[in-house]
């Protein structure tokens, strides 16, 4: 019996219990994630990180939460009050909703009832997740706009532009998964990976998804929306107390959400690592939850690792990367993949398939070579005009002596104008 049919028979109280469990899972994940991130980044910087509150500092996030909740809740005079309050609520609620369609385990028994740990299964669940993620952007945009202040507005704009751009790349990377699994339902996608994970067969899609999920969650190195040096705190500059805590919660739940989605779509979901499939029957199927969590945690580690390693991108570099690299690459890859898929369905002979693959590789190589040549040519052609050497003192390059001939700036400007005119 497939999962959709199985969980379709759940009575109401089981659905309630599942919902509660998923909510608790998200909140606990957030608390652990905040602590884990701080500890791991600290180790990467040869520090210890929080280790005072509770054993190993495990209760640090809880203590921070209590502190945040007890702080004064400010609403700026210039803010649009209603939207200002609604925005964090939108952010915090939408991020939880994505978990409704994530399959946490295979078939298990919950309070004597046979089911699977997945709240619901839609035929279009992945689209549902994308839709929910887009609604989550409203939280950011509205927060930025309603604050009635410059930095939040800029941060909100950046953030929304970023999330929307990377959602395109993300959506395109998911298309490959849809093509290969023949379904948009998460449970069926997981089932389609029982032999090979999609991160192996659809490696380019996997890479694009991983990059765009970092962009989607506004995390380092793509955390332009809250570039402290430029925008103070970004969209949440004016927020304090519990409303700020909601954004904070949303950010981390979002990370767990995209990691779960990556696990589900590319890493075989709750399935065990290859060669360890016998563990899937342990504890009456509940052991699969371990595999799911292990995979999510490793994705989370990737997030932290990126943050510990890479500097923040410049905004234009980031957008260029999204639109000019990720999206075209995705499109070409989907085209190739779709062709291969059709070939395999029509049972085209093997030499033709291999020939087509080689042809694609050659075409890509040709295209990159032509591109390289043309950019090199453009560089050579666009060289700056041959100006006379500046007569004002400039720092010496290695092996050069300093020009010790002082010309007033006005003379220098006059000379440049003469030359240009």
């Amino acid at each position, binding site marked *: 019996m497939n999962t959709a049919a199985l969980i379709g028979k759940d009575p109401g109280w089981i659905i309630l219990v599942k919902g509660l469990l998923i909510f608790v899972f998200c909140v606990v994940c957030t608390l652990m994630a905040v602590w884990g991130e701080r500890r*791991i980044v*600290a*180790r*990467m*910087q*040869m*520090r*210890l990180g929080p280790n005072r509150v509770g054993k190993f500092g495990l209760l640090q996030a809880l203590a921070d939460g209590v502190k945040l909740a007890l702080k004064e809740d400010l609403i700026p005079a210039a803010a649009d009050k209603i939207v200002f309050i609604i925005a964090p609520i939108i952010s915090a609620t939408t991020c939880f909703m994505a978990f409704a369609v994530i399959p946490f385990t295979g078939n298990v028994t919950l309070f004597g009832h046979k089911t699977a740990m997945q709240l619901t299964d839609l035929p279009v669940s992945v689209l549902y997740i994308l839709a929910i993620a887009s609604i989550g952007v409203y939280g950011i945009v509205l927060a930025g706009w309603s604050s009635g202040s410059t930095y939040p507005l800029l941060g909100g704009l950046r953030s929304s532009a970023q999330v929307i751009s990377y959602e395109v790349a993300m959506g395109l990377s998911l298309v490959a998964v849809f093509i290969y699994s023949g379904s948009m339902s998460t449970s069926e996608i997981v089932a389609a990976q029982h032999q090979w994970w999609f991160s192996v067969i659809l490696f380019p899609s996997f890479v694009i998804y991983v990059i765009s999920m970092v962009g989607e969650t506004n995390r380092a190195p793509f955390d332009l929306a809250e570039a402290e040096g430029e925008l103070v705190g970004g969209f949440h500059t004016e927020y304090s107390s519990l409303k700020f805590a909601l954004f904070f919660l949303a950010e981390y739940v979002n990370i767990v959400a995209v990691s779960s989605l990556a696990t589900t779509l590319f890493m075989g979901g709750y399935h065990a690592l290859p060669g360890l499939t016998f563990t899937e029957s342990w504890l009456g199927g509940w052991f699969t939850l371990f595999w799911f969590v292990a995979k999510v945690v490793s994705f989370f580690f990737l997030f932290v*690792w990126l943050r*510990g*390693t*890479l500097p923040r991108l410049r905004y234009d570099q980031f957008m260029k990367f999204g639109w000019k690299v990720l999206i075209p690459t995705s499109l070409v890859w989907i085209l190739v993949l779709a062709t291969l898929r059709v070939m395999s369905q029509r049972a085209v002979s093997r030499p033709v398939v291999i020939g087509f693959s080689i042809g694609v590789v050659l075409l890509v190589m040709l295209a*990159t*070579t032509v591109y*390289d040549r043309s950019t090199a040519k453009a560089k050579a052609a666009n060289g700056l005009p041959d100006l006379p050497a500046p007569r004002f003192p400039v720092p010496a390059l290695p092996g050069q002596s300093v020009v010790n001939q002082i010309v007033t700036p006005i003379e220098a400007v006059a000379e440049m104008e003469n030359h240009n005119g």
Partner: protein
Amino acid sequence: MADEAKSFSQQLQGFWVTFATMFKKVNTVQYPEVKEPTAERFHGRHQLNRYDDGLEKCIGCELCAWACPADAIYVEGADNTEEKRFSPGERFGQVYQINYLRCIFCGLCIEACPTRALTMTNEYELADNGRAKLIFEKEDLLAPLRNGMIAPPHPMYPDSSHLNYYKGEITGSHPSQATGEQE
């Protein structure tokens, strides 16, 4: 293309750096439990030193107070008398206060001190919860009496002048100093 491949591999090297650092020894010192010794000449709390017989070195000249850029030191000098002698020579510091809310630990007072009465210790735990508590008085700053020292006021070493003290020729107390009887 070759350049791009190179820069990509260099970026991967960056990932290795952060990963490998996780397994290195951390630099953090668990401060209140673990206290590492400071540098030998760390500028900590001040100390008013004594001669080896227990007399104070401070002569109440106020040069430290004058040298202080933060105006953290307050000194009132007074005359030594034959009955009540705190330091060899004419004068001694009767009131000596350092305000640690103002002190910047620059050490100019130490340079200014003509008798090496004022030096700095390595003690750095000076936090407190009141302004008044951070104005250290003379008795907070005076060096403790070591073995062989006698608490002033007491007379100078028999048959000596302040110059003998200054030159470091007095290396301990004389029994007569304790009783206050002149030989």
